[in-house]
């Protein structure tokens, strides 16, 4: 059968770096193709070439056997290639309707937009795919999950023959993910070719027919999903060394309640209308994971622990002393460290170098009189980069040029240089590849064994199962269950997360 889309010998070179090398890649109609690989493996480059966002250095793209123009987004859209990008690709100040038809609104003479036709087409589309959206709502006023639906609808409206989904489930709850997968299956039935990119292997196995694995800018394997298993995929993705490490991690010994010393104690913490009666103890030398659906107020709760937000009622004790943090500065002085969920917006100075970012939380140490000692900063940065095995190990590199996993390591490392006694991390591995994940887990374990009390908020059950010494479940603003990590019944936890009694 003729593939719908075929890329031949696609190569993209940036300076000395070959982001993509001689990739040959074809997808047939009605096929759902999984595309996996560590960050920096070349997935994004491949996708960008297929959507026309980037011009390849070498190679050709054919759509149903005809050569397609390269580096021309409009040309690819006209040929039926749509992409749902990882980051929002909507015009926030415009209506849902305008966004669905972005750049290709139907017109009646004089360039006047034919609003009634647009509306009718959008209605039909909503009906056919059973999506519930207010077409006149302004996109910026919609919650993230709804915005994702707008993006999907935008792709569907193109009547695309190829739909590329780049990490489509990054911010979706598990119910939403299931719904998205139904949509993917419906698309498949209609003969659409889907390219599905995800770090979450469960999703690949749930929804894809075939899987392409990339590493270091090359395609290294391509096979039907039913012919491979999880650990084979992981091995191919990360290479031998890291695969062993991540496997070993799964069999780590757990330390519920760590050393038995209570570092932080929350008693009936309440923020009206947000979360209520949250009580737990966090021990030195343990990793406590709090899991739950997106929107179960985990983030809001931990923010009050760090003084980033206030709680209304209840008490918070650090080392047996009641505290009320009115700002992060106070929390930091008590030895609390916090890695926020959104590393771009809240965590890193993207344009500054790795060294500068790493020194950010401990600048006072590099002070010599009123000026900062460059040399000691560079030296300590070099040590941190080595400890965290950040790649490339070049402290002068701006953080924005690092892959997601390495950025996250910088962020974690920034706090680690303060040796926090209580370390809170919110979704520390979202958008981070398998290899970097294993390394971040190793770092957290090292900190735990040193005696730090670590609290991790995570939606990723794989992650929770891998690192948690204890597991707490939050449902709709309440902490509903607490388990020991070594004996945690995962199926029960899944039921609890969904709010079952």
């Amino acid at each position, binding site marked *: 059968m003729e593939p719908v889309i075929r890329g031949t010998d696609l190569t993209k070179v940036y300076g000395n770096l070959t982001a993509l090398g001689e990739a040959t890649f074809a997808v047939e109609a009605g096929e759902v193709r999984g595309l996996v690989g560590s960050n920096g493996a070349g997935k994004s480059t491949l996708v960008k070439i297929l*959507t026309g*966002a980037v011009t390849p250095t070498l190679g050709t793209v054919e759509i149903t056997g005809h050569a397609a123009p390269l580096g021309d*987004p*409009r*040309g690819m*859209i*006209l040929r039926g290639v749509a*992409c749902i*990008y990882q980051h*929002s*690709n*909507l*015009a*926030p*100040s*415009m209506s849902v309707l*305008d966004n669905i038809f*972005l*750049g*290709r*609104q139907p*017109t009646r003479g*004089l*360039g*006047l*937009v034919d*609003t009634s036709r647009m509306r009718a087409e959008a209605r039909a589309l909503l009906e056919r795919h059973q999506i519930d959206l207010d077409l*006149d709502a302004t996109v*910026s*006023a*919609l*919650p*993230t*999950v*709804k915005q994702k639906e707008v993006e999907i609808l935008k792709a569907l409206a193109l009547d695309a023959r190829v739909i590329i989904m780049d990490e489509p489930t990054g911010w979706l*709850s598990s119910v*939403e993910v299931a719904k998205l997968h139904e949509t993917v299956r419906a698309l498949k039935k209609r003969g659409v070719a889907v390219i599905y990119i995800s770090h979450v292997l469960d999703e690949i196995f749930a929804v894809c027919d075939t899987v392409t694995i990339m590493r270091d800018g090359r395609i290294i394997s391509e096979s039907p999903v039913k012919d491979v298993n999880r650990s084979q995929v992981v091995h191919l993705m990360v290479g031998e060394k890291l695969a062993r490490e991540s496997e070993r991690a799964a069999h780590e010994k757990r330390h519920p309640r760590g050393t038995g010393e209570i570092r932080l104690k929350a008693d009936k913490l309440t923020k009206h209308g*947000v979360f209520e009666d949250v009580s737990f103890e966090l021990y030195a030398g343990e990793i406590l994971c709090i899991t739950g*659906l*997106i*929107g*179960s*107020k985990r983030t*809001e709760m931990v923010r009050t622990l760090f003084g980033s937000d206030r709680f209304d009622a209840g008490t918070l004790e650090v080392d047996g002393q009641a505290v009320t943090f009115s700002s992060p500065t106070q929390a930091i002085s008590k030895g609390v460290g916090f890695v926020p969920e959104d590393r771009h917006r809240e965590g890193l100075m993207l344009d500054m170098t790795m060294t500068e970012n790493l020194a950010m939380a401990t600048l006072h140490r590099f002070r010599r009189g009123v000026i900062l000692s460059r040399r000691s900063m560079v030296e300590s940065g070099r040590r941190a980069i080595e400890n965290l095995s950040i790649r490339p190990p070049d402290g002068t590199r701006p953080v924005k040029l690092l892959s997601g996993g390495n950025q996250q390591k910088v962020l974690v490392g920034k706090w680690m240089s303060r040796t926090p006694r209580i370390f809170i991390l919110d979704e520390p591995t979202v958008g981070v590849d398998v290899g970097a994940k294993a390394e971040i887990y190793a770092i957290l374990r090292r900190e735990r064994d040193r005696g730090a009390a670590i609290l991790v908020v995570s939606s990723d059950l794989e992650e929770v199962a891998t690192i948690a010494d204890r597991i707490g479940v939050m449902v709709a603003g309440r902490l509903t269950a607490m388990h020991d990590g070594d004996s945690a019944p995962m199926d029960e936890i899944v039921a609890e997360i969904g709010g079952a009694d």
Partner: protein
Amino acid sequence: MRIPRATLALLFFFAGTAVFFSVSAPRFATATNVENLMSGFSFVAILAMGQAFPILVRGIDLSIGAIVAVVGMVVFDLTLIFHVPGYLILPMALLTGILAGAVNGMLVVFLRLQPFIATLATLAAYRGLVYSISGRQLVEGLTTTAITDRWIVGIETYYDIGGWTGISQFMQMPWFPLSFFLMLGVFVVLQTVLLATRFGRDLRAVGGNHEAARLAGINTGGIVISAYATSGLCAAIAALIMVARFTTSTEALGTGMELTAIAAAVIGGVSFAGGIGSMFGPVVGAFLLGIVLLGLTLQGVEQFVQQIITGAILLAAVSYDRILVVRRRRRLAADLVAAS
């Protein structure tokens, strides 16, 4: 059609200010004063509408005052030195404005300059051009010669609409300047372009999310250049109105107008965040600045104090815009939590 809250607030503030001066300032609520407002601020409104276009695509056009001078020079030279008939000068003047604006756009798009830097440079360059090559400088005696071409000075015409319709029998009516109707015409055309055409939506898409627009196949470079060209066109229309009023043009024509136009656009709710705003706001913003300045003058407030008050209004408008944005973010966060 949902009327945005910011627009309502602006209208409310406008009405409140008008009422305040009607009560407190002598001779404010008179036909003469309304006439002054219309003739003195219609071209400001046109400049503000033009300015809104670059701002909508997350840019700014500092050069419009200088473009006004360039267009003024072109009109002056063509009619007084080359004796070109007025009906030919008008389209040439508009074309000059469009070109000067398009150059700004091209600097932003092709050289990838920051709009602020690009138009700061052309602000100096255009103004310098006028000082160095204008016929007014080079040909003796022209400084005192008035422009008489009917096509040009005819723009400064007033219509006694109250008299024609008979309303003047019941109340005192101002005479309406042609510039006011030109302003209305520009408003109708640009508002339609912005809200009802593909181009308008593409423009707001580029301002709202440049990368999304590019990946949706929109020719973002063309859109940005068009936005600056529109600003230049509006500067040309404003220049014609000013030249007609003064029956001459000077090298300093339009100096500082960019700041008034930007202030009017921003007061009118055109957001520097891009993609937000319509033509309605800049018009109301321009006339709001107008009534404040006229009202304060009638109250005998010093000019420097007037500038302080203008600045305060600008700050208030921008802060209000920020408050709305922050509130929307909060509500969004709450919705996100409620939805899942």
